[in-house]
């Protein structure tokens, strides 16, 4: 995946505000990268551009050399609020993406069940999304995305709405599944620990307009130890960079 010179402006009440300015970066296969930035800096907007949900005013997004012109099954987005269909069962939700494919119903079900098993929810196949906890809903959304076997997974603050324990558990699951499925993942977060723990590289984003200020490789080997020296070191570096890359004069800003 390659983004070059992405810019996006929104016009609001006659005023045009640049939200993203000249964002460029590349993501290699099987990589997990995080885009880290504070609220409102344009992370979701960037992800929407990458997924083809919105067109950039300038710049292009390419996947395997092909320019992205609209949303596609190659590149599945996991939305901030999961986007599960409340009138379908868990299984029905996972099957949604498979209904295009000319699969016999039994095969479709089997494939959906395989991915539900992968996220540990095969016993919830008949339940409705409202009957599940937030963490379980996130898992269903993940299974639905993986079932179409996309090249790229875009995740918008995937674990922001769940408690710390569930978050840790989901993060470990995501790493395991990513190893198995060999999917490339771009995830947006404002949680430094999450960014460092999950990704191979962290892109730090500044606001007004959103740009990528710094890129930081996370050298420590996976699986990582949350309490390990290296982890804490990278975490500290991110914090420092954020201080340094912060636009002066400094607004009130805390992480």
């Amino acid at each position, binding site marked *: 995946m390659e983004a070059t010179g992405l810019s996006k402006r929104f016009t609001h009440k006659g005023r045009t505000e640049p939200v993203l300015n000249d964002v460029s970066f590349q993501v290699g296969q099987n990589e997990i990268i995080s885009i880290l930035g504070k609220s409102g800096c344009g992370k979701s907007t960037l992800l929407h551009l990458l997924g083809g*949900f919105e067109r950039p005013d300038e710049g292009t997004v390419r996947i395997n050399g092909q320019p992205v012109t609209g949303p596609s*099954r190659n590149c599945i987005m996991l*939305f901030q609020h999961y*986007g599960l*269909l409340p*009138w379908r069962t868990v299984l029905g939700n996972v099957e949604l993406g498979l*209904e*295009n494919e000319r699969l016999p119903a039994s095969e479709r079900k089997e494939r959906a069940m395989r991915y539900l098993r992968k996220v540990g929810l095969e016993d919830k196949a008949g339940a*409705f999304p409202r009957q599940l906890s937030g963490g379980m809903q996130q898992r269903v959304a993940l299974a639905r995305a993986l079932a179409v076997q996309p090249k790229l997974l875009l995740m918008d603050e995937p674990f922001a709405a769940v408690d710390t324990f569930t978050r840790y558990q989901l993060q470990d699951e995501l790493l395991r599944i990513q190893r198995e499925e060999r999917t490339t993942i771009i995830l947006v977060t404002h949680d430094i620990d999450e960014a460092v723990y999950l990704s191979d590289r962290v892109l730090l984003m500044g606001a007004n307009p959103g740009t990528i200020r710094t890129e930081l490789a996370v050298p420590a080997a996976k699986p990582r130890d949350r309490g390990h020296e290296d982890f804490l070191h990278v975490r500290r570096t991110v914090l420092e960079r954020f201080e340094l890359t912060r636009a002066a004069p400094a607004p009130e800003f805390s992480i």
Partner: protein
Amino acid sequence: MRPLSKTAATAFALLLLVAAWQAVVQIGHYDRSLLPSPLHVAQGIVELARSGVLFEDLQVSLLRFAAGYFSASVCAILLGLTLGRIRPLWTLVDPIVQVLRPVSPIAWSPFIVLWFGIGNAPAIVIIFLAAFFPVLLSTVKAVRSVDATYLKVAQNFELPPLRLLTRIVFPSAFPQIAHGLHLAIGTSWIFLVSGEMVGSQSGLGFLIVDSRNVLRLDLVMAGIVLIGVFGLLLDRTVGLLERWVGRQWGMEK
């Protein structure tokens, strides 16, 4: 409220209404031909039932109502799904709908008789008109307020347009459409009587007109009571359906 206590409350309220009616008749010493008492009306209903007129008229009315209401619902939902999805088209059609909607279906009755003749058709057309607009408007509104995330999910999985409509837009809009269907059942039931006063020779509306012509006010009142009671039953049935939809769709726990 639990269903049982709600039924009890309904029964109690109806009893109260009948009691008030009886009290008015007794205190005012109204003549039977001016304001029939509940007992007289009950006798009237029994008389109608014995002669078979009651079931015949009831059946005819319910069939006409079903024909008008269901055809209106299907047309309005299909049209509403289309109009709701195509924004510029709705901008164009909206003023037209707003001009037609406030016109009572009865106002059209001279034309309806001219165009559709007499018999079942005029009543069905009038019920159709009464049900059509509430369902159309609620469908358009429902379609336009479909959660943008669902549409993005559908785009992401590359659902073709027709499947987007049947798998995402319609189910997502359905609770609100069901609400429109509920509203429409009330409005169109109101127009049943007027519809049957236009060129029909049967049905509850005709029963009322016919009884008035022979000065049987107890039977007129019997017709009114029947229309009221069946209106209530229809409303309750659809209300139950609407609640079931709400539960299935996760609107309430």
